[in-house]
C-alpha cells in the first residue's frame, strides 16, 4: 500500500490535474522525491533548493503538522501526506 500525497489546488497544473499521487518511501523527503520523479514540475513548486522547502509550503502527515524537519519525518504505507500552501491574503 503506497503513501498518498494530496496535491494543493494551485499545484495540480504540475500533476496533470491529479489531486492525489501515490508514491513509495519511508520519509516525507523520499516521497516528495518520488513525486518529483513522476511530475518534475513539482520541484520548483515545493523546493527553493535541494532539501530546502519553500517557506510557503506546509507538510502534514495524517492530518498532523510535520514541522519541523518535515523531510525527515518517517512515513509508512497507507499514510497520507498533505502539501498545503500558507495563505497571506485578507
Amino acid at each position, binding site marked *: 500500500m503506497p503513501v498518498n500525497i494530496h496535491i494543493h*489546488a*494551485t499545484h495540480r497544473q504540475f500533476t496533470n490535474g491529479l489531486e492525489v499521487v501515490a508514491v513509495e518511501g519511508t520519509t516525507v523527503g523520499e516521497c516528495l522525491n518520488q513525486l518529483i520523479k513522476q511530475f518534475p514540475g513539482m520541484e520548483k513548486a515545493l523546493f527553493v533548493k535541494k532539501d530546502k*522547502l519553500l*517557506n*510557503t509550503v*506546509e507538510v*502534514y502527515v495524517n*492530518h*498532523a*503538522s510535520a*514541522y*519541523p524537519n518535515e523531510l525527515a519525518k518517517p512515513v509508512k504505507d497507507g499514510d497520507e501526506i*498533505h502539501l*498545503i*500552501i*500558507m*495563505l*497571506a*491574503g*485578507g
Partner: protein
Amino acid sequence: MLTPSERERYDRQIMIGEIGQEGQEKLKRSRVVIAGTGGLGSPIAIYLAAAGIGMIRLIDHDQVAMSNLNRQILHWEEDIGRKKVDSARTKLKNLNPAMEIEAITETITEGNVSKLVDGCDVIVDAMDNLPSRYILNRCAIEKNIPFFHGAVNGFEGRVMTIIPGKTACLRCMYRGPVPQEKFPVIGVAPAVIGSIQATEVIKYLIGIGKLLTNRLLIYDGLKITFSEFKVNRNPNCDHCGSSSTQFLSPGGKRGG
C-alpha cells in the same frame, strides 16, 4: 443589564441555550480589536456588530479603492477615496447605533501595536499580509490577549484560534519570510472565513463550545470541503516558546 430594546434586538440569539441573557450581557461588556477592515474585516465587523459586541476598535491605514469592492462589503462605490475605518464606522453605526466604535487610521507596527490593542479582550486578524500578522501574534502573546487568525487566497481560506500560553501560535510553524504579493480573491472566500473567525470570537467571549485551538481549519471553496490539521505548540517558537523571553503573564511573571 440589557435594556428592553436590546432584549428585543437580540431575542433570537438569546433563545440559543448556550447564549441566553447572561451570554448576551457578556457580549455587551466585550471590547474587540479588528485589525483590518477589508475582505475579512468586513464580515467580521458586521457580524460582531450585529451580535451586540459592546465596543469594536477598527484599525486600517488604507482608503477605499474600486478594486476593493469585489470583496470588502463594508465599503461601497460612494466610499471610494474615503478612509476605510470611517466608511466601516458609518455602516456599522447604521446597523447598530448603540455600540461603541473606535476608528483608527494607522499602520500596525512593532512600535504602536501594544497601544493599538490596549484594553481589548480579543484581537481579530483581518490583515492582508504575514508580517503584520506576526506583529499582532507577538503582541497578543506578550499581552496575553486571545488572537483569532484568518487568511484567504482565491477560493481558499484558513482559520485558527490562539490562546496565549496555552495553544500553538501563528509563529509555531514559522519557516522564514515569505514574499509579499498581490493575491487573488473572490468575496465569498473571506465571507466564509471571516464568519468563522467571528463565530470563534463570540464563543470565546461567552465561554462556550470548543475553540479551533491547536487545529488549523482549511476551507476549499472550489470543492466545499473543510479539512482540519493538528498543529502543536513549538517549544522553540520565537514568539511563544519556552525559550522565548517574550511571553509574560498579565502579572508580569513568566508564563507557560
